[in-house]
């Protein structure tokens, strides 16, 4: 297969970027998309290309670490159902395809270089409340609290989020609602998450707004591209907890920080 790539090249956050065109001949259908980029990069290094190899983030290449991700023809991770770009194989493309590769585009995700962005806003959202406050050593026996299998399964469905950022990239508002709600729903479905449930929702949503992610307007693109199949019903759960928290959990209006 022969593939043509139009790749966003940008030297650093402050530099101007531009699209560059590259030809990759001899693509095997069994290659992953990232392996095709490896082949391109080897060639760019060997011929000492002025722009150097294309920078893209990746690590486990098994679809679980959440490092990789960029837009292929406007679709996050390339638009193959429940698949990160590292697990997307070239057998899904055709000989002669002409593809456009761009980084995630969102104010809250500044471009670091080429296809790599800064997603540290996600860590700050988790730090604002995405946990159960239990210090090491203070846990009761694992079977002390029985958990309904369905609740445990629903918690797991949400806990699968890999924090890749595809939901933000696919959303016309660049909202991080799917990501944030996945953590709120994961812990909200479990008895261990109940004591901090409302406070958590309020803190995390406030932090999400402070990071300049947009608001959710129920478009559903996030669910369509999520490689882990997180559903937008989690956003409904988040909104319910957030409204409840806003009514019941406010020490003073000054601490609310509506975004």
């Amino acid at each position, binding site marked *: 297969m022969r593939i043509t790539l139009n790749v966003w090249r940008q030297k650093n956050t402050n530099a101007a970027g531009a699209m560059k065109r590259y030809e990759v001949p001899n693509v095997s259908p069994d290659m992953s998309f990232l392996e095709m980029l490896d082949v391109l990069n080897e060639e760019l290094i060997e011929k000492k290309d002025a722009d150097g190899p294309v920078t893209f983030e990746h690590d486990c290449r098994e679809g679980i670490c959440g490092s990789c991700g960029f837009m292929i023809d406007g679709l996050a991770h390339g638009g193959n159902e429940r698949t990160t770009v590292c697990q997307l194989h070239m057998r899904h493309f055709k000989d002669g395809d002409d593809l456009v590769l761009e980084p995630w585009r969102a104010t809250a995700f500044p471009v670091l270089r080429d296809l790599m962005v800064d997603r540290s806003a996600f860590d700050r959202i988790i730090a604002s409340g995405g946990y159960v406050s239990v210090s*090491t050593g203070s846990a009761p026996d694992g079977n002390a609290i029985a958990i309904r299998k369905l609740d*445990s399964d629903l918690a797991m469905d949400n806990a699968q989020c890999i924090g890749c950022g595809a939901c933000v990239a696919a959303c016309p508002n660049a909202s991080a609602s799917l990501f944030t709600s996945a953590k709120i729903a994961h812990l909200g479905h479990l008895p261990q998450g109940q004591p901090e449930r409302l406070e958590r929702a309020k803190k995390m949503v406030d932090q999400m707004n402070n990071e300049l992610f947009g608001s959710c307007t129920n478009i559903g693109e996030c669910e369509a591209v999520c490689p882990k199949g997180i559903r937008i019903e989690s956003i409904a759960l988040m909104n319910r907890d957030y409204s409840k928290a806003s009514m019941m959990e406010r020490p003073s209006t000054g601490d609310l920080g509506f975004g």
Partner: protein
Amino acid sequence: MELNSRVPSGDIQTRWTRTKFDMKLVNPANKRKHSVIVVGSGLAGASAAATMGELGYNVKCFCFQDSPRRAHSIAAQGGINAAKNYQNDGDSVYRLFYDTVKGGDFRARESNVYRLAEISVNIIDQCVAQGVPFAREYGGTLSNRSFGGAQVSRTFYARGQTGQQLLLGAYQALERQIDAGRVQMMTRREMLDVVNIDGQARGIVCRNLTTGAIESYAADVVVLATGGYGNVFYLSTNAKGSNVTATWRAHKRGALFGNPCFTQIHPTCIPVSGDYQSKLTLMSESLRNDGRIWVPKKVGDKRKAAEIPESERDYYLERIYPSFGNLVPRDIASRAAKKMCDEGRGVGESGFGVYLDFSEAIKRLGADKIKERYGNLFEMYDRITGEDPYTLPMRIYPAVHYTMGGLWVDYQLMTTLNGLFCLGEANFSDHGANRLGASALMQGLADGYFIAPACVGNYLASNKFAPVGTDHSAFKDAEANVNQQTNKLLNASGKRTVTSFHRDLGKIMWEYCGMARNAAGLTQAIGKIDALKEEYWASVNVPGSGDELNQSLETAGRVADLIELGSLMCRDALAREESCGGHYREEYQTPEGEALRDDDNFSYVSAWQWEGDKKAQTLVKEPLTFDYVHPSQRSYK
């Protein structure tokens, strides 16, 4: 050099309790005056940083990824062992201890392994309390599955993503401490040197991977939790970024490297498909609960799996090891698969593959049940190979997965460098010559949540710390050293890419230091690696500059260290003239072809001391004694 392992004496069941009682404590008000550096944010690093933050220490945690949640612990699939005996099937702390010592082929320290088994139960409690959604039964209790090398069901799991869920639990605990201001997280930093001042590890030098700046950080103690070095084989199940650099640089500063040749080849991975291949993907060992492994009885049988009748299939693990069957330990399952393929009975286009077949389990339990247990693994297999494992048997082949070796540590997890601790896969300590499935997660979390915080406290309370700043000459020297290496790599300006060298190294290691090793091959490999090292420094092509985000430069430094490590692994494998666990020397085998240990001469830990760039490392031995589990030839028949 004499190694002091600080292993306590007396009754094994109270060794850890007594050690903890004998430790000095840091008073709560003084804890915040102590600074701790943790390098690595996987299960061991994140849990250690979070716990030490909770205790009140001033912690800085470093990782090379963009977030601590990306660490490769996230990819562990199958589960985590704990001696809870919730299944009432005869499990106990002692049995988990026994299985692990035996599984490690009697090359691990009994004291460490007992402590690991003892702590295993606390880990499950802690993780449940954090909200880790382990699999549950309809009654609401925790569910278990079986893993290789054990005849009880003691593995806790969260679908096929147990590592992910445990890491996210530790990551969330860490983020909580970051929010509380007790841990400062330094992402996109790669540790390139450890700094010793007056006989104490007092800080690190790292490269800021976004800006390229070389940065120094001082502290009272340094903890390395930087994972394993399986990427020395180029193709492995490790993440692309996994590397040996942090521990290797510590080794070059005086920390001894333990059992480098003990590597684990995992029996069930997706076979290689082409030269462009960048990594291998594991299919969890848990699949061996329900999948049956077979090859055709006839050599060179190229028929499709479905066309081979039952009577012409060889379920070789069930045949050779009837009592453990498909659940024999990993080293044994891997060697058996290699043997079948070497006989010409391998399947798939390359002939390097065996079938892992679920058709019987699907008939017995229904496709839904199988989907619930392994759904995400089946999906992953389908995505990579384009084949549906619900209708066709999986093709699998062994691949490098885990490294039992690592920095030598004493019972309190301190390396031979005073004040430098090492946790998780990065140390050598608990798995001997072969790790049992679902034990890596257990060890990472035992080290991080429970052992390191106690031992680091003891070290801080027992020593005095002169104030040290990063303007100290030792930091300046280390920075100069790092800069010099960066410049050397950038200025080599040769023709060959870093990856092409890495691939060559991998081929040498896999051929000569992989599943089967022999003296002639290892000697040859050492020569080849030395030549590769020379060529590397003379003609590697690293594009770009040092003061920008430069992924090629990052890889270049890592590959330089992996090349040196590869040579040491081969020398370690050559010096160990016996077979044990994952280390299989063809010269030393039983008449049935099983690993033949030599307890009279090799019942020791090999710890290698760096002697400078021009000289080979020297071997220091830590003798192993077995007071509880008497060494015998492992039998899984």
